[in-house]
């Protein structure tokens, strides 16, 4: 695997929602990143429905049908549906397949009857627990690949939210330990992704399916979530920002192994990934309030190709099921963006989205297209190793944060950031040295097995 050494976009100014340098075409002809933004709805089954394959099929049938029907009712021209596997669907790969097959059939019907352009992403659950099993060698690992094989027969796109390095990340995030984030996310997570995605891409190719991409959800979103909003006291916002910058190193690996996008919605690092690779990305923001909060609800649409809601549990609302309601909301968001494209106001519209959240928090600040591009540049300019590029990304984002006087910090956030940057600067330059250091430092972490990462 060759580490990226150049930027797909010459500058952030060229980046805009709806268009990616390398668009992706799905089975029913829908093009992602091909000039307009497409909503991606993610319904989630209700508790209890996972008990039998029959009830789970019925649950997804309803949730997906409601979404498709709502498209026709309000005139949404195109939609992508994502079904994230619940544990049972990957643990019984046959289940995942039956649901994928049913969904593909539903899409076909709407495509035939109404001309609704639609595609389907199936996201396999990473059921490997780094601290409990050998990541490359366990029954659960086998099941994951089986699930990929089965689901890719029917899905347009396959994805995963992989868990490599999670044991070290979890240990570090609650200890203010940015070294541990580098090690867990970039070194371990990146290695796990390389191994995983080499295999996934093969499977996808064999089944004429699109290898979508991965996310550092397990790490950077945990950090974002814990940093929370303006009354949380879990971790400082600045640490979440650094975790996000670092995550580029591992998430990028999926594309370096042959994934072509669209990137997973929950990968808030996707603007940086798009700047480097030119692949189409799915992002989520304000409508994902249904699942978790972030402080960049508008900003995240600035360079999206698909616009998503993270995951909405199926339930009844006055206006129809939650799946229908959120499809409608996403559909209108996309319509406004596409309207801007059609009118030639996309740059002005983008500016409004960015300006809404640029200084709302350190985490949102680094995801603005200009900063995202700059961080991407640091990544490709320091491509000696997964480690070196992650460290460069973190340092760059620190620099950016400190240099913009409009970005405000609480005293604690600022203090912490100063400490993180000092710590990062003091780290060894070579990945090998860094790994040696970390293997020692984290040897006592419960369940950490270097062999899981071939170390």
């Amino acid at each position, binding site marked *: 695997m060759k580490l990226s050494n150049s930027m797909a976009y010459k500058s952030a100014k060229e980046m805009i929602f709806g268009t990616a340098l390398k668009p992706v075409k799905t089975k029913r002809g829908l093009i992602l990143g091909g000039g307009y933004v497409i909503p991606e709805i993610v319904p989630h089954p209700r508790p209890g429905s996972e008990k039998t394959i029959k009830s789970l099929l019925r649950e997804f049938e309803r949730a997906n049908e409601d979404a498709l029907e709502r498209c*026709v009712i309000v005139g*949404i021209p195109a939609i992508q549906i994502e079904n994230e596997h619940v544990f049972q669907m990957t643990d019984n790969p046959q289940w995942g397949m039956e649901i994928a097959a049913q969904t593909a059939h539903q899409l076909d019907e709407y495509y035939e009857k109404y001309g609704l352009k639609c595609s389907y992403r199936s996201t396999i659950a990473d059921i490997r627990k780094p601290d409990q099993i050998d990541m490359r060698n366990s029954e659960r690992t086998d099941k994951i690949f089986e699930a990929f094989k089965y689901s890719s027969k029917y899905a347009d796109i396959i994805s995963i939210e992989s868990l490599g390095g999670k044991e070290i990340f979890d240990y570090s995030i609650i200890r203010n330990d940015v070294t541990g984030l580098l090690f867990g996310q970039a070194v371990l997570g990146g290695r796990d992704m390389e191994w995983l995605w080499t295999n996934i891409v093969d499977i996808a190719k064999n089944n004429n399916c699109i290898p979508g991409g991965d996310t550092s959800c397990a790490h950077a979103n945990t950090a974002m979530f814990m940093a929370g909003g303006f009354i949380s006291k879990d971790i400082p916002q600045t640490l979440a920002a650094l975790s996000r910058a670092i995550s580029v190193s591992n998430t990028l690996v999926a594309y370096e192994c042959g994934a072509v996008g669209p990137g997973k919605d929950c990968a808030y690092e996707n603007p940086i990934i798009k700047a480097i690779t030119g692949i189409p990305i799915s992002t989520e923001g304000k409508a994902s309030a249904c699942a978790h909060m972030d402080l960049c609800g508008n900003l995240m649409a600035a360079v999206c190709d698909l616009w998503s809601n993270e995951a909405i549990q199926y339930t009844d609302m006055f206006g129809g099921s939650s799946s229908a309601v959120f499809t409608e909301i996403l559909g209108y968001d996309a319509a406004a963006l596409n309207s801007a494209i059609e009118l030639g106001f996309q740059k002005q519209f983008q500016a409004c989205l960015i300006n809404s959240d640029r200084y709302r928090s350190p985490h949102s600040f680094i995801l603005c297209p200009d900063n995202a591009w700059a961080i991407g540049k640091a990544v490709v300019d320091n491509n000696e190793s997964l480690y070196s590029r992650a460290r460069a990304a973190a340092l760059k984002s620190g620099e950016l944060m400190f240099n913009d006087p409009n970005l405000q910090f609480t005293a604690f956030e600022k203090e912490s950031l100063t400490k993180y940057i000092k710590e990062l600067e003091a780290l060894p330059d070579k990945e090998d040295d860094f790994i040696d250091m970390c293997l020692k430092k984290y040897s006592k972490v419960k369940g950490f097995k270097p062999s899981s990462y071939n170390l």
Partner: protein
Amino acid sequence: MKPKSETNKIFTRYDINVEVARQTARKVSEDENLQKVADCIVSGNEDELENLVKSILHIKEPMEIINGGLIAGMKEVSRLWELGVYFLPQVILSSDSMIAGIKLCEQKLGRPMEKKAKVVTHTAEGDIHDIGQVIVNALLNAAGYEVINLGADVPVDDVIEACRIHKPIIVTGTALMTTTMTAFPKIAFGLKQINLNIPFICGGGAVNEEFVTSFDLGIWGKEASQAPALAEDALNGLSWLEMRTKWNG
């Protein structure tokens, strides 16, 4: 069918894409006069129909006009509505016309025409959202049932009392508020207590299948247009449980 505007990025007018080829009503009678009556029903022209019926009543038996013209025409209307050609107001206007026509015939007959059966309809206590019920009333009327219309915001006990008195083949309820739908299980309970196992069709935006099938007698009605077929089943002797199995689940 293939998409009409492959390039439309903002919205798609699916209604225009799929607009049903505009079918017209079929001929229902060889008799010129009866066909004219049916035509008036199909076009929902009440005034014209009344004049027409008045004049034909001189040359035809009332029951012949009812069956051969009025009801035959209404059947065509129902067909067009089910095909998606007709919209609701067209059905309502036709139904109004038919009722007016039948009234004239009944005057001549000297007795009311026999209805298929009685049905009771209401909108839940505390709820004034009764448009759903109004539609149900019109459709059941048009299908030949005697509709005991209790109106909106009807106390639980009044519904039970009306059922006790009228012994309808079905009773319907409409609720659009989650704070009013709770009246339905109470009504069902009350009916069972006096041994009236009447199928209780519940509809309206607030209720769903899960809720309505959580109490005895309840059958969930998704669309007002299902009301006549539901009544038909009850008329044919299906129990509430059989009806629920057929329409829900």
